[in-house]
């Protein structure tokens, strides 16, 4: 299935040629392209929610309360007659922003600290890795729950909490990558010709450590989304009337006994589709960028 043979050196860094190769490979894999298109579509709709959504998210309509999916309301309405589709589109803003924000923040902090550890090793490494072990001793969702509860109930704090639970993943990954790459001949060569340590780190080591990090980050987007949704499902983060997919599912849950299935089904479906898309893209990227992981599905 792989048409490139993994070289004995590190995976290639990211300049345009690789980006084009990634694209070519993704394009051949129609499932990933579909996933990418779906994410782009959702992100675009969320960004332009004011124009795209057929109704205002908080617009009530007593006459159309609890309408089943149909011509006027594609995905139906809730008890106040609010259009579900419009609410899902608006909710996408919160969900995607938090997932992206948390992932980006964790990536930034994790990589920065990882670089510091890679540069100094020794006692710094020992202390930081014990901290990482401690954070990883918690199941991620439970820790995110505790942090949100401790910091206070807000979307920003949910973002922070998710980021904190993800930092160790990047830190560990980049640390092991840097430790591996720094033993390679080209790193030795860079040292021998007299490059300063920071230059070796940022020009030679870091770019080559990036591919697995990018894979990890893509998969983490899906995970962040799931955590976010689960947190707001149990009532953390989102305050009504603001809508978010997890909290919308929670609101819809009480209508199961009366048979209004669309209220819990569609918001949850939005989560599933987005997470599925991120995972599919992550898996394809991994197949391409990280030859060692090939075949491990």
């Amino acid at each position, binding site marked *: 299935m792989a048409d490139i043979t993994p070289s004995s050196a590190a995976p290639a860094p990211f300049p345009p040629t690789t980006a084009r190769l990634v694209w070519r490979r993704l394009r051949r894999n129609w499932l990933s392209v579909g996933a990418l298109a779906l994410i782009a579509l959702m992100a675009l709709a969320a960004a332009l929610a004011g124009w795209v959504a057929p109704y205002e998210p908080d617009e009530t309509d007593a006459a159309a309360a609890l309408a089943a999916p149909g011509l006027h309301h594609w995905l139906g309405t809730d008890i106040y007659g609010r259009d579900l589709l419009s609410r899902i589109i608006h909710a996408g803003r919160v969900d995607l922003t938090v997932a992206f924000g948390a992932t980006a923040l964790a990536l930034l902090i994790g990589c920065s600290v990882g670089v510091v550890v890679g540069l100094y090793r020794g006692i710094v490494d020992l202390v930081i890795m014990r901290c990482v072990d401690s954070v990883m001793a918690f199941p991620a*969702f*439970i820790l995110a729950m505790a942090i949100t509860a401790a910091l206070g109930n807000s979307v920003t704090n949910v973002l922070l909490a998710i980021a904190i639970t993800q930092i160790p993943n990047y830190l560990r990954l980049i640390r092991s990558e840097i430790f591996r790459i720094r033993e390679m001949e080209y790193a030795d060569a860079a040292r021998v010709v007299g490059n300063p340590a920071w230059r070796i780190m940022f020009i030679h080591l870091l770019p080559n450590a990036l591919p697995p990090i990018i894979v990890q980050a893509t998969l983490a987007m899906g995970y962040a989304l799931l955590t976010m949704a689960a947190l707001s499902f149990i009532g953390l983060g989102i305050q009504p009337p603001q809508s978010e997919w997890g909290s919308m*599912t929670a609101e819809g849950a009480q209508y199961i006994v009366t048979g209004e299935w669309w209220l819990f089904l569609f918001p*949850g479906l939005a989560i599933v589709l987005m997470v599925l898309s991120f995972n599919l893209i992550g898996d394809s990227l991994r197949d391409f960028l990280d030859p060692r992981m090939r075949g491990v*599905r």
Partner: protein
Amino acid sequence: MAFLAYFLRRLSLVIPTLVGVTLITFTLTYVLPGNPAVVKAGPLVSPEVVKELEKQMGLDQPAWVQYGRYIGGILHGDLGESASTGRPVLEDFKQRLPATLELTLASLLIALVLGIPLGVQSAVHRDTAIDHIGRIVGVAGVAMPTFWTGLLALYVFFYLLGVAPAPLGRLGPGIDPPHAITGLYVVDSLLTGNWRALGSALHQLMLPSLTLGLSVMAPIARMVRSTMLEILESDYVKAAWAAGIPRRRVIYGDALANAMIPVITILGIVFGFLMAGNAVVESVFAWPGIGNYAITALMTKDSGPIQSFVLFVALLYVIVNFVIDLLYGLIDPRIRLE
């Protein structure tokens, strides 16, 4: 001897982690919103009374003194009080733990019983329909939020088909719990021959455990599949084929036995998923376990149960992973020497 060294080496890694875990839970407690004294006293008391309570609860002491007391308390089994029930958290925990344990074990059983054969069949019939189905189940299982799967199951099996009971706890209405031996209703009713309770307990357990079990089945199936693929290529399996040993015996006997070793290592991860999923699934099905207890406490900003729950889960998680490490070292002698 080698195993003892391995044991001590592992232990030396666990202890700093445990200290780190308590430091984190302590910090979280310390910055949790809502002064515990105010929560305990209620909204209608004067600031002087709150001050007095703070002194009583030791909240005016420096952080490190409080941490010392916190650790001392944990070591004596004192997890503090729940501000809303007014009972020691440990008591509340003891009462609810069997429910969580029963759900977790049932889910793990389902995940293993479905996941292992699926993984084996996917590997044996690589790139056929079974393998594709296995992959789809795996990908979907990871992408679906557990709360949503639970609601979907409720809608289909409770509302539409009427084959599942209402999500209202561990036993149907009007059924007395079996005589308590282990606290697990299924086991207890089996031991005491209480078939009515057994039927009801299993019925109530059906949807929550299926929901949770399916959510953790994917990593197990995936791991079994990839290790089986490797093992099926190995010389001793090929030798077994060549010797004409029956197919089933080679696959489920020789190959699977060896494929189980890496599966043990991911049981730690699976356990983490189970604990996290537990809280959410318990709240969907009104399951009276510790996860549901913590989430209820979350809503009332009752910090005692929350921090204890988090601490408890983390400690359990560390211990489970430690035991798994030891098991792994016991089964596979090569690990000890690394």
